[in-house]
């Protein structure tokens, strides 16, 4: 800080220096924000530009190309990814919502905090460890399967679903609960009849966000469902083809044809992930505003 000087409206050299420093800092912050947007734009445009030329109806509906054969498509990847994410959601949605209900509606503080900590730690867990864990649990000694991959993805989703559910449950006004209790309604009917219905929208959008995240996860699938057939497979008892792993495989290939396929698949995945998360976020912000006020 500059030493106190006789007051002057004009400002001396130190004042000018302070203004210059201030200006530099402001410009730097503006540039940083611009930089982040630029990176996003560059990545999205790179993928779109390279991917769009490959995408056709045939590409989206054909089986995977056999090794070294030109052409082919990604229908099995889309179907497989959908099934895997479906399994993950079927596991994570009930578990996440129940855990959130336990934390906000039932648990005393002393029990709530270790559960909360578990969720936070689970959320921060490197996803490759989930892959290793499920490999050790379900795959090692058996075989890769859609169940294993879906379970691994569900561990990614549980803390996300739980957290977004918790947030929206907290927004349900306490007065609503109190009013119901005052009418003599029991706790379980308050939870099922009052709290959950008002939180439903938030839970759905939170789950959609978690789905968008899980759809792009590769590491949990790499050891659990990565050796698959090249046509559409729907039996979760066997390894299911899926987009993230196949993009990974193609990106490591030296064949430029495979790179093209990787870009096109990446575009499909990116469009799905970005569109769903933008929409879900928009809905979430709107409903939060409505409930928060």
């Amino acid at each position: 800080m500059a030493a106190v000087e006789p007051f002057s409206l004009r400002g001396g050299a130190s004042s000018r220096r302070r203004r210059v420093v201030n200006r530099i800092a402001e410009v730097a912050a503006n540039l940083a924000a611009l930089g982040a947007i630029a990176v996003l734009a560059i990545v999205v445009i790179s993928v779109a530009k390279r991917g769009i030329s490959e995408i056709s109806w045939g590409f989206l509906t054909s089986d995977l190309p056999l090794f070294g054969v030109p052409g082919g498509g990604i229908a099995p990847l889309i179907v497989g990814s959908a099934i895997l994410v479906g399994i993950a959601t079927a596991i994570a949605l009930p578990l996440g919502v129940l855990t959130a209900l336990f934390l906000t509606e039932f648990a005393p503080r002393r029990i709530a905090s270790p559960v909360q900590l578990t969720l936070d730690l689970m959320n921060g867990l490197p996803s490759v460890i989930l892959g290793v864990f499920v490999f050790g649990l379900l795959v090692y000694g058996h075989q890769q399967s859609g169940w294993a991959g879906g379970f691994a993805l569900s561990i990614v989703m549980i803390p996300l679903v739980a957290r977004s559910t918790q947030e929206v449950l907290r927004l349900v006004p306490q007065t609503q609960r109190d009013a119901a209790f005052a009418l003599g309604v029991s706790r379980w009917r308050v939870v099922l009849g009052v709290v959950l219905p008002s939180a439903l929208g938030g839970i759905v959008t939170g789950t959609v966000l978690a789905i968008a995240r899980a759809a792009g996860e590769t590491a949990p699938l790499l050891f659990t469902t990565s050796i698959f057939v090249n046509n559409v497979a729907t039996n979760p008892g066997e390894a299911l083809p899926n987009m993230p792993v196949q993009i990974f495989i193609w990106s490591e290939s030296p064949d430029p044809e495979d790179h093209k396929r990787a870009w096109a698949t990446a575009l499909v995945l990116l469009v799905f992930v970005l569109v769903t998360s933008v929409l879900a976020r928009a809905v979430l912000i709107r409903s939060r505003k409505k409930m928060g006020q």
Partner: protein
Amino acid sequence: MSSVPITHTLTGARRARDWIGDRILFLLTLLGSLAAIAIMVGIAYKVLRGAHLSFSKFGLGFLTGTTWDAANNVFGAGTFLYGTAVTCAIALLLGGPFAIAIALFLSELAPRGVRPVVGTLVEMLAAIPSVVLGLWGILVMGPFVAHHIEPWLHDYFGWIPLFGEPSTGSDVFVAGLILAIMIVPIVASICRELFLGVPQDLEDGALALGATRWEMVRGVVLSGSRPGIAAALILGLGRALGEAIAVTQVIGSATAINKSLFQPGDTLASRIAAQFQGAVSELQISSLFYLAAILLVIGLVTNLLAQVIVRRFEVQQTGGI
């Protein structure tokens, strides 16, 4: 809600039903929570268990051993610990200040109408699947960095061993850059929340005393949220530590420590991702589990640390008001 006659609420049947209903829902939610805890415990157990064979063979020497030789069944994590440390350092050094600047822009500088738009765009950066970012990294950014940035760094800073001969685009430096991109949105969004939480009165007070905006930011916003910023950076670090896919794609894979950043390397996570499929011997699989165990411990410690800081900080904040 259907109206219930008062006399009805007092009947024994209704009370019994409510008693049962309450217990069932409580038990269900309890079970859900226990399942979450069981999964966490199961992860720790399975990973440590899987590492047992390798641990009994190599012990703690595994941490410093820099040999990874599948043919002779000698394994060590030293190279990958080094690679993890270096890539994370690059990510934090480049991404950290960048993210804090973005958070300042979002919380202090940007016009109200611009904030949600830019905020959403920054969060979209976090939504990009890592495999897509890695694809872009290996085919677009890597070659660009290798042809334009690395030669420049080598020319001016080549006397530092870190900046050796430029590579072909798959190296530790590129991996660090990709990780920086990944942690920016995480750190930025946490920091933005922190900065928004700084009392407006304090900011106004500083400005009223004649501070410039930057002086206000430095003196009030940044100094007040220092622990929170540390927690945000640690959470970012946790993300960078564990990223496997994108790093595997761009880092090039190496079994020895290279002094230069412009040489291939490997991190704990990328080695696991790259080798798990092709692992041949029990010992190699177990050694990969050992790597996962190290990663698990580091990941849990960093996350716990961040949680502790956040909780203490929150207590301080609410206690102070």
